[in-house]
Structure formats: C-alpha cells, structure tokens
C-alpha cells in the first residue's frame, strides 16, 4: 500500500500526461464525430487533472467549467446541425498526412532548439503550493486589485455582447 501511494504521488502527473496524449490522438483518429467529441471531453478533463497536480486548482476548475462544460456542449450542438457522416468514408491517411507530419517535425525541432537554448536556473528543490492560501485566493486578490480596470471593462463587454445578440436575432418590428 505504501509503495502504491508513493508510486502514484511520484508518477501521477506523467500518467495523466500520457492519458491526455492518448485521448488527444483519439480525437484525431476516430472516424465517428461523436467519438471524437467524447475523446475531446476526456482530454479536457485530464488536462484539468494536470493543472490540479501542479497546484493550480483555480485553473483546473475553470478548465472544467469552460472547456468540459461550455465548449464541448457547443461541439455537440454542431454535431446536431452539420451532417458529418459523409466524411466517414474518407481515408484517414492521405497526402495531407505527409504534409502535416513534416510541419509537426519542423515545429518540434523549432521548439526543441528554443527549449535547449533557454538559460534555465538551478533546478527547484520541490514544487509545493507556491501561493499562500491557494491559487484561487491569489487569482481573486489580483483580479480585484491590480486588474480591477480590465475586470470592470469586461463587465461592459458582456453587456454589449448580450445587447448585440438580442439586436441581431430579435424579429424586426415594422414601424
């Protein structure tokens, strides 16, 4: 039991990362669009898990609410509206595969060059909860003090978005 706990506490992050990659590949390679959406949902939840492991519980909660909650619902609505089954007959491996493999290889090389060119400092001993009181309190404190101005502008922005949506969709009353 001790060994199991110790194993998970050391390797949970890597397990989550691996699973995230697996489900992300599932998003791309499943032929049925519904399976893709479910795989995407799992990816989002697993990413939230990674955030939790990194002591960023606020971002984890937002990730769950916005992505797993909101964005996935939008995708499901899209599935209802668009006839996707036509594409099921298409082959997954075609000429684009070669092009995208080349692009991905290029991107990996660029990122690797940048990564190894970075002047990293000494390795941090342990990563613990960096912020006193947790990241939620830290985010709230910053949001309501330093970033109060953009926060207030965002409230006007939301009002404009609501007004705009109503203006554009409401049936026109002829005068």
């Amino acid at each position, binding site marked *: 039991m001790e060994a199991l706990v110790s194993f998970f506490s050391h390797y949970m992050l890597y397990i989550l990362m691996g699973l995230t990659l697996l489900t992300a590949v599932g998003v791309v390679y499943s032929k049925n669009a519904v399976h893709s959406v479910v795989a995407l949902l799992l990816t989002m939840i697993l990413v939230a898990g990674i955030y939790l492991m990194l002591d960023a519980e606020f971002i984890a909660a937002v990730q769950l609410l916005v992505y797993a909650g909101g964005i996935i619902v939008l995708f499901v609505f899209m599935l209802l509206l668009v006839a996707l089954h036509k594409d099921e007959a298409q082959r997954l491996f075609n000429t684009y595969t070669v092009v995208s493999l080349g692009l991905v290889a290029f991107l990996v090389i660029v990122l690797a060059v940048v990564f190894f060119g970075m002047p990293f400092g000494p390795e941090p001993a342990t990563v613990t909860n960096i912020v006193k009181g947790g990241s939620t309190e830290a985010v709230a404190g910053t949001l309501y003090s330093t970033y109060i101005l953009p926060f207030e*502008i*965002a409230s006007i*922005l939301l009002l404009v*978005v609501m*007004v*705009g949506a109503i203006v554009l969709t409401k049936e026109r009353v002829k005068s």
Partner: protein
Amino acid sequence: MSDILTRIAADTPLILPEIILVIGATVVLFGAFFARRNTRLIAALTLVTLVAAAIALFGVPLGKTGFFGLYRSDGFSLLFKVIVLWVGILVVFISMDYLEARGYEAAEFFALLLYSIVGMFFMASANDLLTIFISLELMAISVYVMVGYFKDNELSNEASFKYFILGAFSSGFFIFGASLIYGAVGTTRIDLLADKIPFLSGGIGVFATIGVLFMLVALGFKTALFPFHQWAPDAYEGAPTPVTAFMSVAPKAAAFAIFLRVFVYAFGNVRYDWVPILSVIAIMTMIWGNFTAIRQENIKRMLAYSSIAHAGYMSLGIIAGTPMAIKSMILYLVAYSFMNIGAFAIVIILSRKDGYGEKINDFNGLAHTNPLLAAIMLVFMLSLAGIPPTIGFFGKFYLFGAAINSGLYLLVTVALATSVASLYYYFRVVKAMYLGDMPAKRTVSLTLSEKVTVFLTAFGTLVVGIYPTPLFEFIKTTFLR
C-alpha cells in the same frame, strides 16, 4: 484592503469621461423603452452624452498613471479621444435621418455607438496588453453588431459575418502574441515591457520575437494593412453607410493609438526587428489600396480601398516613430476624419432607400442639379487626394516631411507616387459630377442634421487648409503635456 480601495478611488477621476459615456450609453439603451419611436430624442441624448464626455475629458489631469499602472492619461491619449469624440458627434448627425427613413430602432444603435466609443477611450489610454485586449474587444464587438444592424439587408448580414470572423481571428492573434510576450518577459505593462524586452537572452528572445510578429499581424488586421485588408471592402460596402463612415475613421484611429502604444513605446527598443516587416507591409498597402481603388464602381468600395491606402500612409508615422512623426500622424487622422466623414455624408445624402447613390455613376450630373453639393464633394475629393488648399494637403505634407526627417526616402517616394495615382479615382467622381450626362432630375433635399454635418466637415477641411496654425499649435501643446 482599504489601501487598495483608496487607491482605486483616487484614480477614478482619470476615467470620468469613460464613466459618463457608460452611464449615457445605458440611458440611451433604456430609450428603447421610453422613446421607442422618438429617434430625435435618443440622438439628442447621445449628443448630450458625447458633449458631457468632451467637457469631462478636458478636465482630466494629464501625465498621470492610474489603476496600478494599467491606465495612462497623457496628451497622446487625449488627442486620440478628441478625434474619436468628434467622429462620434458627426456620425450621430448623419445617422439620425438615415435610421429614421429606414425604420430601424435608434436606441440600440446609438447605445452601441457609445459603448464602442468607451472601448476606444480605454484603448487610447490603456498601458497594459490585457487592458488593451479587453477594450479592443469592447470596441470591436459593438462595431460588428452595428455593421449587421440592417437585418433585412443581406449585404449587411454578410458584411457583419465576415468582419466578425476575421476580427475574432485577429483578436486571437493579438492575445496569443500577448501571452507569448508575457511568458517571455513576465509583464504585460507597456512601460515595463519597453525596459525589459531588449535584455532578453537567446531562446526567450525568440519567443518574444514571435509574440511581436503575432501582434503585428493582429494590429495589421485591425488597421486593414495590406495582406490583412480583405475584410475591409466587403464590410465597408455592406454596412449601413453611417456605420461605414464611423468605422473607416474612429476604430482605425483607436487601433492606430494601440499600434503606436505597443510598437513605438513597448517595442521601441527592438524596433529594428519589426521595422523592415512593417515597411514592406506599408509599401504593399499603399500600392494595393490605391491601384485597386481605381477599378471600383461602387463609391463605398472605392472609399474602402482609399481608406486602406490612407492607413498605409499613416503607418509611416509608426515606422518613423519620432515624436514629430506621431504628431503628424495625429494631424493626418484629424484631416482624415474631416474629409472622409464629409465624403460619406454626401454619399448618405444622395442615397435614399433604393440604394441609389452608391455607384460612382449615380454622381453623374450632380453639378447641374445641386451645384453646391457637388462643389463640397469636390473639396473632399481634393482633400483626400492631398491637394492644397485643403486639410488633406497639410496632413500629407507634415506626415511625409516627418518621415523624410527620419530617413525613410523609399517609403516617402512610394507614398508620393501612389498619391498621384490616387488622383485618378478621386477625380472619377469629380468627372462624373461635372462632365457626366445629366440623368432624370432627382431632387436632393438636405435635412438640418445633414446640413450641419456637411457644413462642419467642409468648413473644417477648407479653413484648416487655409489657416492651419491653431490646429497645429493645439496638437503640439497637448502632445507635450
């Protein structure tokens, strides 16, 4: 905690004009309940709000930074805010009768106009990439809705949709670039970025450079510079004409304000990284905008390409980056607001419900039926082409002069050559008015608000063109504060 509250309270006078605008916009929005059919009352409320904001604006202390460094009140932002308010007032005048004649509700329209002006105010003063982004979105979303305001008109819908998709795309570029820069530098404040960016090492510097390029693309979209201009002609053509007049000047001015703030101030110390790219973009914009405008038959499309070309000239001010060049660019924007809004006002006066007046051919014989209107349009066209004695001449003169002082000989040569080419399409309108065959007589009658707009813009174009000193002095003294 109370310390934070006192600091916020102490900074609140800085945003008094914005607060007045938000309150006014909300009152106008509620006009949908108490004055549904009364366009004039709502327009009057909007004008009162704009005038009150203008009065408050001149009482705001300058040279101060507030809200934990995120908001900067200086002469630079004041000048941009004055331009935006001035354009807002003119647009209220030209859109009143336009909306009433077509039976569209005025309350939401004017409320969105005011909200977009709030966004532009914050854009002009924002001293932080995040604040810039949020206020940019506030401005942009209001304008997307205004472009699609004529719901029964398919062109208006299409224009709004295209503008929205490309605008959202460019906002994505902006926020992605900003996040890369934040990751590399560790701050989003403009003043801190300016100090820290030159000292980035190796790998991190690459990230920052990519971030700068992303933001260049995003701001290129917002100001409609060459490879990112495709949305402009469609959006300008499809939008209700008063909205076209508004979005060709005010959002462009605000976008140039953040362009200057981000590139000249924050990235000014690494300017050799982006100046060559922006120079190529500026050259292509001037050539493409001017030469494509020649082929247009629709005057709104022609003015759209002309506004792309003018954005190309104005980017000379960013490339030069000296205080002189920035002042000249502000002067150019003032000139552009006079002549462009004036030209659109004439298009609005000519166009009635059936869409007549949007083709260049529709101007045939205007000099015979309405000699005065034709003469005023002639003045605007001369000014847009940059011929004395109009304000457009002085705008070009000082801008190109400042660019020459910074050694941008190639760019100024291209600008001058393309200005000559621009004469061709501006004078197509003049030719149609004075030499075109007289069509069946159409009576053009002006309402009071249209008379006011045409008078103000024509008066400004000519008077500043003949006696420009007071305007120069105002810009010079305000900029220094």
